[in-house]
């Protein structure tokens, strides 16, 4: 057997490789001693750690929309919050529909979303508490520069949509139950017609991808201004309709009701809500994007109520 082993270096090498990988994982665990639950050895660890978790939860799960992540705003705000509170934020950027569902099921601790009508349902059901207005930006209708449907003269988004439909020009919808999608559907409702047909295409993807698809197909779409500005150099789309009051895109922050589950980090969620409304944070939001785009991506609205926008 001796000679067998010396010949078969392969087995030994594989063994060494596995050990190396395992020890690499192990050593990293040691490095991350401060962070809990980092690695594959976790199941056992978190079983023990479960009781501790009840008292000192380290993480807070923020379910939010892709627009806050894709615009880069959260990359600025999250580290500020983490430094101020010591909590670590797990940002899950999904469509607003999914974010709200996570709140409803108690899978998230705090939400930052932009679909006021759907949010109110959660408030009424007691799924979320402490809902506060944080900021707004606006939606714009974008399309190819030559504007084949001739919507540029329109003041109202619904009139523009009606024209696109009757011209049979391609309109790319998010189709993903996001805040933007909900907004788009409410505009179609105003036109009194169901969008359907070859010209109406649903991407089922985030805003960035949807803008790219619209650009490639020479179609129209509804987008939030922040994502459009971030992508404008890479796509052939122009802002055609903007400025209507109903195109405002209003973001609220809210806590998931801690009574839903004892796993909810209520303290961190409450602190996140007050953090978003703090003067310092609001100033950062108001300044965000000015250096890069020459205009802010979001308007800080801490302390205002939705009624202020109705007028």
């Amino acid at each position: 057997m001796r000679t067998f082993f010396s010949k078969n270096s392969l087995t030994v090498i594989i063994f060494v490789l596995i050990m190396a990988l395992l020890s690499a994982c192990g050593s990293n665990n040691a490095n991350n001693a401060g962070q809990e639950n980092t690695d594959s050895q976790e199941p056992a660890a978190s079983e023990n750690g479960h009781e501790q978790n009840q008292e000192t939860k380290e993480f807070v799960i923020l379910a939010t929309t892709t627009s806050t992540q894709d615009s880069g705003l959260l990359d600025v705000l999250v580290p500020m919050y983490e430094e101020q509170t010591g909590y670590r934020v797990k940002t899950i950027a999904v469509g607003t529909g999914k974010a709200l569902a996570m709140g409803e099921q108690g899978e998230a601790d705090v939400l930052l979303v932009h679909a006021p009508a759907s949010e109110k349902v959660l408030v009424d059901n007691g799924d979320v508490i402490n809902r506060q207005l944080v900021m707004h930006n606006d939606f714009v209708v974008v399309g190819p520069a030559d504007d084949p449907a001739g919507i540029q003269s329109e003041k109202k988004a619904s009139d523009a949509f009606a024209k696109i439909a009757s011209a049979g020009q391609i309109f790319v919808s998010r189709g993903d139950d996001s805040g933007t999608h909900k907004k788009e559907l409410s505009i179609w409702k105003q036109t009194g017609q169901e969008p359907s047909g070859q010209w109406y295409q649903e991407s089922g993807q985030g805003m960035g991808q949807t803008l790219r698809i619209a650009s490639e197909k020479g179609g129209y779409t509804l987008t939030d201004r922040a994502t459009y500005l971030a992508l404008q150099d890479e796509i052939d789309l122009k802002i055609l309709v903007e400025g209507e009051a109903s195109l405002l895109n209003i973001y609220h922050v809210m806590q998931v009701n801690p009574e839903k589950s004892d796993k909810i980090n209520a303290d961190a969620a409450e602190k996140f809500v007050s953090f978003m409304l703090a003067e310092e944070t609001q100033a950062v939001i108001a300044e965000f994007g000015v250096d890069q785009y020459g205009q802010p991506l979001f308007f800080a609205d801490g302390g205002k109520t939705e009624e202020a926008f109705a007028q």
Partner: protein
Amino acid sequence: MEMILQGIVQAFVMIFSGDPEIYEITWLTLKVSGTATIISLVVGVPLGMFLAWARFPGRKIYISIVNTTMGFPPVVVGLWVFLFLARSGPLGDFELLFTPAAIVIAQSIIATPIITGLTSAAIMQVDERMRLQIRSLGATKYQTLFLVIREARYSLLAAVIAGFGAAISEIGASMMVGGNIKGYTRVLTTATVMETSKGNTEVAIGISIILLTLAYLVTLGLTLLQQREVKN
């Protein structure tokens, strides 16, 4: 074309400028997919050998099930792992959702059938008569096992390569159960999708080149190992 060139330049800038975030993401990717591959090996190799050798009723059905699950769509795995690990799910108490461990679990589920299926195919290829001969020469059960594995080692390495490849290239499950959390569960594939939708196409191209290079280097290492043995 200009954008593609910029992306390639960006890849080298990211690699050589020592951007800590890129290193962190790359290291996490390697660690997560490497761990998943090892778990899949530990489960898949014995299971594959069992399927190759054992004779029991319904064996062919089990083999066909394993062969079907070799092509498991990662998003389906992601969805089920999500449902199980969610706070309201059956394993919610472990609080594993949106952790690197969740990605390891999902990738292990994706890679295990591949390694199992390829292992059983590799072992079945070893001539039955050889096994009988080894036994008749007086080898113990474990010595026989060892010799047969040795005989099938090239195919087994191919199984490792395929399993690792499936784990590292998968995105649907990583996104769903990992959540693409910055500095925590962001891996190369989820970072590529995010940077693309952010409009940072050059960065996305750069990351994808790093991913390809990483996958290539690991596979190259395993292939060299395989071929060195062939020469011997």
